């Protein structure tokens, strides 16, 4: 009779660890050192809130940046602004939701109210705005964003609106030149 020791079959060897997936062509690269664009601007403000764009980094296929919410000292923001706007039954975002978007010189635009189909084989329709993750306190918070593709020559608009914090629809224009020049420099620093 066989011994009890060979009743249970040994485990199959584990599969070899797979490499983490590489970013898609419309995502922030992980093999290029992005070039900073020195830009720190208040794109909108009210009595209680200032909205700032900074930490802008350019790549050949787009740019990343930080969107910063800074409340007046002593003021607490009603919400972090970005999350949960698709409340059950709502077809429009409530006044609590911070609307944010960008518009290229060719008129194409994208906003944070559009749902992006992560995982779709793609490529998506440009431009796209990814991210929106981050956080902080009720007085200051920071959110990471990524835009694909690189904006064409000409004006680039940052557009915001935050009704509950008194921010009317605001358009802040910069030239895309600095981003495009930085992107050109970034392309020459491949790992």
């Amino acid at each position, binding site marked *: 009779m066989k011994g009890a020791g060979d009743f249970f079959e040994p485990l199959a060897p584990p599969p070899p660890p797979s*490499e983490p997936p590489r970013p898609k062509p419309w995502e922030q690269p992980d093999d290029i050192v992005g070039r900073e664009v020195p830009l720190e601007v208040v794109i909108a403000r009210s009595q209680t809130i200032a909205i700032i764009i*900074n930490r802008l980094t350019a790549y050949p296929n787009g740019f990343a940046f930080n969107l910063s919410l800074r409340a007046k000292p002593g003021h607490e923001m009603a919400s972090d602004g970005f999350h949960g706007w698709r409340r059950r039954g709502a077809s429009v975002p409530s006044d609590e939701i911070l609307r944010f978007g960008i518009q290229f010189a060719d008129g194409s635009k994208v906003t944070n109210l559009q749902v992006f189909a992560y995982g779709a084989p793609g490529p998506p329709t440009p431009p796209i705005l990814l991210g929106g993750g981050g956080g*902080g306190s009720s007085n200051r918070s*920071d959110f990471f964003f990524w835009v694909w593709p690189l904006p064409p020559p000409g004006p680039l608009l940052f557009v915001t609106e935050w009704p509950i914090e008194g921010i009317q629809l605001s358009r802040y224009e910069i030239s895309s030149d600095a981003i495009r020049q930085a992107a050109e420099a970034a392309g020459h620093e491949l790992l």
Partner: protein
Amino acid sequence: MQFRLARSPNGVVTIRHLVAHSNGLEFQLECLVNQPPEDAEELMGFLGRPYYTKRSSDPSRLPDGLFRFGVRLADGSKATTLQAPGMWHGTSLSAFSGRPEQPILLPMGSGSSGAPRLLQAVFWLWPLPPAGRITFVCEWPLLGISFTEHEIDATPIREAAARSTQIWPK
């Protein structure tokens, strides 16, 4: 200001977005990883996150997987990411009773896309460094990055800070 701090065949460390404020220096630190290690958990050693528990077999040595980063200031003082356990999460000035005796590097979040080969952190160096040289230092044996220093002149950054306007003037 942006500069390359260190490089190996498997990693590039970059500092960018240096901004001086009245009470500190803010900057972004990035490490691009070429070939992640087989044990992906080793990358948790970026900035000594509290759940990175690997230890070197020799207690007098730091584990190879632990990323080491710091600054040396013109007055000889220094701040490193190894000063406090769990540096990644929730370290703030309130954790110190009284005024810290030496400069402190405070992590302010990653603010990145989260891609596995793209490691980023935003730091706040308190207090504002004195005028003169600042030396940035890093080392990461896991990625073959040997002890590397890069010196910059803090004076232009401080001058830019003096010209900046406050978001909410007092």
